[in-house]
């Protein structure tokens, strides 16, 4: 940056001026974050210990309420299943992309990332259009005579898991790919040369070496899965209520703000705890392939 434009500037040393500009540029985002993010967050935490009365009563209720227990159970098994399925497909995709010819790699990656550009809402409604009882899939299957009655694809846990997996696969692919790229391409041939079958080489060499990627991808995907709101609400048809939907219900419908915010805060703490564990396993910078 040339100093000619600012004749008064020489009073300040060059280094300080650069720092000043950096701080000025950072000021606006900091203010925005404080007003629209940290303040509401503090409010949520405050409400959870003050409504309806001061104390940890709301948190105690989480452990005693049978409704909460049911919701947490549903959330947990749906999240575990959808995470495992996402990891499975994510692993296959990442493996295929990393081992594809370089000219193909960027196209394959683009195809995976394309889904980021479509909003969750649109994707969820697309699934409904495809899978409802009078949707494209059921009508087609009936016309070609494979089924007589329409299959219930949605408004059940299957629909929820389908929608969630669709959303989470790219989040599984990215950390897995970043990890697989670091695995020397000679390891598998080396194992083959020593007598391993193609699967044996994968099982004994490639899989163990991709474990760090698998662990970071699974924590990341699981954290994502806990927070799903629109997908379970629309594809679950009210039958498999998950935590996020339940919180919205408490806040919007039953106006049990204390209960809702306590649950929200507990989730936040849980996610932070998982992030701490994740941070011990991998460096965040390398997780998405940053240098």
């Amino acid at each position, binding site marked *: 940056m040339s100093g000619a434009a600012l004749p008064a500037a020489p009073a300040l040393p060059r280094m300080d001026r650069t720092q000043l500009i950096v701080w000025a540029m950072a000021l606006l985002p900091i203010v925005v974050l404080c007003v629209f993010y940290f303040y509401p967050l503090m409010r949520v935490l405050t409400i959870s210990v003050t409504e309806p009365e001061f104390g940890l009563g709301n948190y105690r209720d989480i452990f005693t309420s049978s409704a909460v227990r049911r919701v947490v159970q549903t959330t947990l098994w749906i999240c575990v299943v959808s995470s495992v399925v996402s990891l499975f497909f994510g692993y296959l995709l990442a493996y295929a992309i990393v081992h594809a010819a370089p000219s193909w790699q960027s196209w394959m990656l683009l195809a995976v990332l394309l889904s980021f550009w479509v909003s969750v809402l649109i994707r969820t409604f697309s699934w409904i259009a495809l899978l409802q009882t009078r949707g494209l899939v059921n009508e087609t299957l009936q016309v070609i005579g494979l089924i007589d009655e329409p299959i219930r694809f949605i408004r059940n846990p299957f629909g929820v898991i389908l929608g969630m997996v669709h959303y989470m696969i790219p989040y599984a692919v990215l950390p897995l790919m970043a990890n697989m790229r670091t695995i020397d391409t000679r390891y598998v041939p*080396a194992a083959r*040369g020593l007598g391993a079958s193609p699967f*044996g080489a994968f099982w004994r060499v490639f899989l163990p*070496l991709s474990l760090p990627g698998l662990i970071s991808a699974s924590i990341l995907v699981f954290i994502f899965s806990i927070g799903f709101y629109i997908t379970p609400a629309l594809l679950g048809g009210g039958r498999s209520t998950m935590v996020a939907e339940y919180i919205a219900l408490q806040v919007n419908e039953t106006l049990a703000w204390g209960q809702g915010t306590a649950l929200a805060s507990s989730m936040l703490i849980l996610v932070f705890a998982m992030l701490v564990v994740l941070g011990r396993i991998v460096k965040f910078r390398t997780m998405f392939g940053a240098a």
Partner: protein
Amino acid sequence: MTRQHPLPSAATLSPIPLQQEGLSMTQPDTAASGLTIQRLVKQYGETYALKDVSLEIPAGSFTTLLGPSGSGKTTLLMSIAGFTRPETGRILAGGRDITGLPPEKREFGMVFQGYALFPHLTVAGNVGFALKLRRRSRSEIATRVAAALDLVQLSHLADRYPRQLSGGQQQRVALARALVFEPGVLLLDEPLSALDKSLRADLQWELKALHARLGVTFVYVTHDQEEALSMSDQIAIIRAGEVVQSGAPAELYDRPKTHFIADFLGRSNYVEGTVARRDGRPVIEAAGQLVPVPECAAVPAAGRPAILAIRPEKITVRPDDGQGPGLPGRLSAWSYLGATISCRVATDLGEFHVHLPTWQAAFEPQPGQALRLDWPPEAGRIVRDDR
């Protein structure tokens, strides 16, 4: 096939035999298999990585595939290993056709460039990998891993991980890992290229001694001609997907068939001119000089162009006294290399490189000094022009 060469211990290995027992390829009690490569062709798109390569690799020999990078030598090794499937041609091991076999069914040991040691396994885990796959008993694995590590003198590092080892140590682990299941053939892909020069020289001796001990067929890929000359029983020089010439190192060095080989394996001076006959003996006429040529089948008919290659160390130099035979020239540069003096001499036939043993140099080098170069006619070789 039964393989029974027991891995000797380091104690029996330590006095490294300085003199190889001739070029005899018959070794006692080996189960090494020979390889026959018949007319291999491998194409990548439009370019041929291998075009019609045939080569006989005798059982128990140390055969080096030597060539510049991109010549196809690694493709040839990978075809032998089973990682590359040639379009046409066959590979036989001990008379058995293995062309269609996957790598794990070929039972060849392989040392990769950069070693490819498994980072999640210890040294012992790496070395025992092949035995574990073969479902050997735990005690057998332990004994054999210990013997293999002993062979490469790394027993004390069995519990380390590859990243904790130096380059030379990693190289030895890779060797032990490839030899532990007693393969009849060991394939080595530029195993020394990542090491510094002095270590490389040491490991060359060790590899050669190991080969002599085990009697296993070694197929060694390198682009380093000194490495090839110092270790091999047989060198196959590969260029642009073809074996240009194969034979014992001395044969290739002393009797190169083409300009490329004379240039790639060591250095050469070249005299280019037209063949003529003087007193019934062949000569090359170039720039008004008549250079005698050894009588051999490669000499073209009189009037045809020819190239004569002369090794720099076969030329003698004396101060020019204006008399006697020899090619006059002037010393343009020299450098003292300890054992030898390397001279550049400007002559009517172009610049000549001459290597003189220091103790034989019969003159004090002076810039621009008038010299006479001479060599016996047998020192020259007519080479085919394949530039």
